[in-house]
């Protein structure tokens, strides 16, 4: 199959080339073995992730584009739910629970669940996307964040919202445009029932334009800020914008 005349004019050269190529290839493979990049590369990756946040927020995201809605018959039979506390977070005294709306706002609020239920109501059946790669369809009921924003009247300096929970200090930071998306809601119901404890009762953030980890469960407050708030997973390296 191999003719003589493809023999190289200088065999050493080709061998050298091959050795170099093989060594280089092996070296890069060995270097990559179960590697996370180390302290030298990790900051660069996080910088790149900020660029991707910017692209996701300013270029790919549209406040007018709505996520597809599904028929309730398409609901998934299961939707996993995570919390970070050792035990499922439960309120000691649900009657005293309030959603505190504070920070850079003209009208700070303290809302009961009844207050929220009395506000404009949104219901949709959408697909949930987890950063891990799974997806599931469920129906959510709640009040659009935009309705709360209308009531608390943020100051012009407010550019972000920090959502805090009673799940061991879990929190997330959101940009204002994502929060004002018509499908971003404070959900108090799921699949025609009150929000289950496993999914963040009494109140959680929900939006089909975000990955699951951005949708704070077990909400206690939303705080308007001028600086970009971090969050539980975001501080550990997960993309800050987390849009889908």
């Amino acid at each position, binding site marked *: 199959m191999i003719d003589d005349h493809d023999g190289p004019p200088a065999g050493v050269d080709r061998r050298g080339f091959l050795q170099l190529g093989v060594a280089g290839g092996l070296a890069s493979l060995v270097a990559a073995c179960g590697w996370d990049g180390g302290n030298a590369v990790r900051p660069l990756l996080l910088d790149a992730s900020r660029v991707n946040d910017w692209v996701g927020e300013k270029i790919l*995201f549209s406040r007018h584009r709505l996520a597809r809605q599904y028929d309730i018959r398409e609901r998934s039979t299961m939707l*996993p739910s995570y919390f970070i506390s050792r035990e499922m977070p439960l309120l000691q005294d649900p009657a005293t629970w309030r959603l505190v709306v504070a920070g850079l706002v003209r009208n700070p609020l303290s809302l009961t669940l009844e207050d929220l239920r009395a506000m404009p109501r949104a219901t949709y059946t959408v697909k949930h996307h987890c950063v891990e790669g799974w997806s599931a369809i469920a129906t959510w009921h709640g009040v659009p964040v935009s309705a709360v924003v209308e009531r608390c009247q943020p100051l012009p300096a407010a550019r972000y919202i920090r959502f805090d929970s009673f799940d061991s200090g879990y929190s997330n930071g959101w940009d204002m445009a994502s929060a004002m998306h018509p499908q971003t809601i404070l959900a108090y119901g799921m699949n025609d029932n009150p929000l289950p404890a496993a999914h963040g009762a009494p109140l959680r953030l929900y939006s089909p334009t975000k990955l699951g980890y951005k949708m704070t469960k077990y909400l206690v407050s939303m705080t308007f800020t001028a600086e970009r708030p971090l969050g539980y997973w975001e501080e550990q390296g*997960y993309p800050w914008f987390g849009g889908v």
Partner: protein
Amino acid sequence: MTVPSNGPAKSAPRPPVPPAPAAPPVVKRHHWVVRLTHWATFLLLLGMIASGLQIYGAYARFGDRGGPSYLNPFDDLAFPKWSRLGGWLAGALNWHFTLMWPFMATGALYLCYLVASGEWRSLLFRPRDIRGAIEMQKYYLRLRKDHPPQGKHNPLQKLAYTFILLLGMLSVLTGFAIYKPTQFSWLTTLFGGFQAARYWHFWAVWIFVGFLIVHVMLVFVVDPASLRAMLSGWYRGRFPSHD
């Protein structure tokens, strides 16, 4: 031309050299853009695959929760540590979403070169190559004795290189479909939904890996001179002809 019989022991007397085919001509084979994008794609693709295998481990199945899973021999499998990049899900995502930019830029640069140089004519498989591909296949199956005449690439090579270009595009498009399934919902729908797009994105990996193995094997078995050509740009081997 004859070797003195009292030469060094290792150079045993050779038979007189026949008039012999002239040494193969040295021809310029690959533009620097081609060489650069070839090796950059190789490294970037390794990084994309390795970080992708780490990401896969976070949910090693396909199909909506509570619904049927797609057929997948790698269900619930964690790929070996040496094959993964990123350490954990967040690290792997950051690698994947960082490398995707140079990966796409490299592909775009290569496509621009193909168009601007006119090289696409000798590389892309077109309907007129079908006949030549059959002849070439016959030659490989020993149904035909002589090597069919060819230009820079034979029709089967054209088929392979066109296919791998399309596979690269499929990887990018399915990637976007699962990166932003809401913003690119039309793309996600085109691939049959989020989990289906994820599935095709994953299968593209194994086609890339299969291509890589065959590609490297053929280089060494059929035309080792082509490896050097891809490094230096100059080709000195069996198939020097050009279109």
